[in-house]
């Protein structure tokens, strides 16, 4: 049926100038579907806004919560500005040390996003490489790599992260740990999430490698590495980007969970998870804003990123159309 509905005029007209990259994008299904969904536009704007605010926290934030000189214990535990006893200088209130909650959220989101992005990139590198090799080589290589992936899947992500963190704490002296804590976290999260990429890439690679353009490249004599990188990789990246978006949200959550459990980033540079944990101690003494606002920020960020990921998955997956 599909060939019956194809436009005969869609065939290339050799004399015409090909459209520019921008024109192609504006004409694409991606842009078309984006423009039509207010929810996706909102999610996109929220994501961009939060990423922007977090990235530029030192310039955007009203206070510098880590500048000890500007902190005043007199300002500690102030409620949000619109409540009785609130201070208009501190929109979302302050914590026990007099730090502005809004500013700590911005700085905290910065750490959370940094960990999220770095771990997604690392997991993607590991997963895509293993998936490509397993799918292309097949046979014993494939079997071994995929069994490793299966074993990996039997451990919950949090457990792996705790394990890596624990081992690193054991190896490194405590003062060094403060500095590398962030990277330990990234490594832990990446190690627990690469399997998703590997499995997806492996199955797409197995489909792609049977296509004739790969055989054509083999007939030309191209080495396997070049075929993998230049021919197969670009054709399997679609689903990877979708997973990466969803995994970004997941990584932020795992980071928050670990930080909440106290094995994440050190309290001197708190992430959203650390903030929630610190605030948790004050929840029952009435200072709910210390934990609720970072929590809300986390929820909004993760929800927006997840919505974007779901939308990308729907648009890029031809089967769902």
């Amino acid at each position, binding site marked *: *049926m599909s*060939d*019956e*509905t*194809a*436009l*005969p005029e*869609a*065939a*290339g*007209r*050799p*004399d*015409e*100038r*090909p459209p520019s990259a921008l024109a192609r994008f504006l004409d694409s299904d991606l842009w*078309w579907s984006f423009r039509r969904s207010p929810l996706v536009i909102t999610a996109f704007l929220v994501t961009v806004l939060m990423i922007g605010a977090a990235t530029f926290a030192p310039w955007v934030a009203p206070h510098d919560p880590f500048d000890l000189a500007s902190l005043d214990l007199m300002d500690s535990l102030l409620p949000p500005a619109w409540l009785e006893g609130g201070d208009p200088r501190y929109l979302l209130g302050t914590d026990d040390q007099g730090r502005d909650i809004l500013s700590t959220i911005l700085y905290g989101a910065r750490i959370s996003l940094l960990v999220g992005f770095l771990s997604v990139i690392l997991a993607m590198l590991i997963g895509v490489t293993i998936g490509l090799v397993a799918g292309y080589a097949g046979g014993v290589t494939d079997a071994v790599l995929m069994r490793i992936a299966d074993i990996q899947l039997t451990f919950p992500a949090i457990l792996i992260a705790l394990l890596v963190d624990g081992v690193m704490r054991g190896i490194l002296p405590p003062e060094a740990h403060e500095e590398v804590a962030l990277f330990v976290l990234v490594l832990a999260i990446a190690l627990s999430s690469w399997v998703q990429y590997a499995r997806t890439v492996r199955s797409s690679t197995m489909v792609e490698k049977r*296509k*004739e*353009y790969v*055989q*054509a*490249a*083999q*007939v*030309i*004599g*191209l*080495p396997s590495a*070049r075929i993998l990188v*230049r*021919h197969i990789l*670009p*054709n399997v990246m679609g689903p990877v980007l979708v997973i990466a978006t969803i995994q970004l949200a997941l990584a932020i959550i795992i980071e928050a969970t670990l930080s909440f459990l106290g094995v994440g980033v050190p309290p001197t540079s708190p992430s959203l998870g650390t903030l929630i944990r610190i605030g948790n101690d004050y929840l029952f003494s009435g200072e709910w804003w210390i934990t609720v606002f970072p929590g809300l920020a986390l929820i909004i960020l993760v929800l927006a990123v997840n919505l974007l990921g779901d939308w990308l998955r729907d648009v890029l997956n031809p089967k769902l159309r």
Partner: protein
Amino acid sequence: MDQDLGTGIPSEPTERAAPLLEIRDLKVEFPSRRGTVVAAEGVGLSLEAGEILGVVGESGAGKSTLAYAVMGLIEPPGRMAAGEIRLGGERIDTLPPEAMRRVRGKRIGMVFQDPLTSLDSLMTVEEQLVETMLTHLPISDREAKGRAVELLEQVGIPDAATRVKNYPHQFSGGMRQRVVIALAICCEPEVLLADEPTTALDVSIQAQILALLKRLVRERGMGMLIITHDMGVIYEITDRVAVMYRSRLVEIGPSDKVLNRPDHPYTRSLIAAVPPPDRRIDRFPLVEYIESAGTTTRKLDLASHWLGKARDFGAGDGPLLRLEHLTMRFLTRPSLLPSRRRWMTAVDDVSFEIRSGEVFGLVGESGSGKSTIARIITGLYRPEAGRVIFAGEDMTAMSSRKEINRLRRQMQMIFQDPYSSLNPRMKVGDIVAEPIRFHRLAESETEVRRIVADLLEHVGLGSRAALRYPHEFSGGQRQRISIARALATRPRFLVCDEPTSALDVSIQAQILNLLKDLQEELGLTMLFISHDLPVIRQMCDRVGVMQRGKLVELAETEALFEAPQHDYTRHLLALMPRMRAA
């Protein structure tokens, strides 16, 4: 048994008021974000009981849309914008979905193209037949089971009583299509719609299926609408034929008349493009009406042109390629224990030579090992035993990549499927340039670009094509890109694996012409693989016939066609549709 159910069509029509099936002024459109695509417009035809009407046209002409419209199965957002469809005088296009569901299967049976996917693989054949009959006919479970066996017997399945309990995967492709036909006729439909019923089948199976359909139509007085792109099928079984072109019906009439004295110029060019099986012609007549791609290629001056430069090989007339006792097996059941492994022998002790400058054809049905040989020669597979000797050097004995690449540069391959043989993420220019860059055949990037432009120009696409992506091109144009890429290493040996079997017949004519031109200009040696005997006759100097992995006959083309020696060759030749013999 036709009568005992009382559901058959009346054996004696009392009056010939309305035709069995009538389509009037049909218009089907598919709205999309890029505007509305009209898939059929102003189509009107009628079908009488006991008649076989063929609908022929190229892909995208609207043939299948017609069938889907009759079945009321046009997928939204597509819709029937105008016209009416009448079955036995009664309008069916306006029926509510539930009533239409009763018409489908009961009064109209349908046979689809792919027997692999049109049966439910989790139900036995009996279950599927019985389910359909119980849905539409007032009979008991036991009667239905008895009828299922009868039906299988009628469609020519041996040992029907036991086979009826089998699952679809236990049948071969041809047998499965017979089951599909049994399913389509199990409720005694008045009309049978067949959409490319034999396209996925080998020629010998095709002949059997067509004969079966013809017999069933005559015996039962059904009307059959058969949709095909294949003029041979039209010639074989239709009484009348309707020709569709760009969503419109351009010609309709008795098959004999349309095939031999077509009125419409499109029909004329379509028929002219069919390779004649009974004689060899130099070039196919140029077909207007088809694609905009230029068919004129400039004559090359090889002495000065890049394609002729540094052809570091002589023109000697010894064998360029020699295959010695090639054998190749595929593992069909892997196991750790060697004794438990099962193998399928794809190529069985095959030896032949290809002389410099000749076009050597390999012909055979699917699974005969033709493509495996092509892939062994180009180094995609390693043979289990035997040697491949190219230009005097034993390629199977080589282990260093450098040495193999030196020879590989001299042989290139053109693939069957133009939709998967080009990397969709690369620009056409980069696709064609890749072999030049990899083998460092040009001194500078400017030169690479000039050569690519030249090649694209030469295969009739124009140099602007370099900046576009493959999806912007049609099947025939993509096959031209494939050819340009294959020429980019300045090969002396070209392997063409079914290069035109995914293309429409008019495009096939253009591509075959282009290959012939290139072969002559560049003095290429070619291995041309096809299941299509008329195409082989037009293209090849010598032909090898393959059957189940073995080379059964090898002869000069004309000798093979005029005086075949082996039984299998004679069998294949007998099945070749000879539409001009009429």
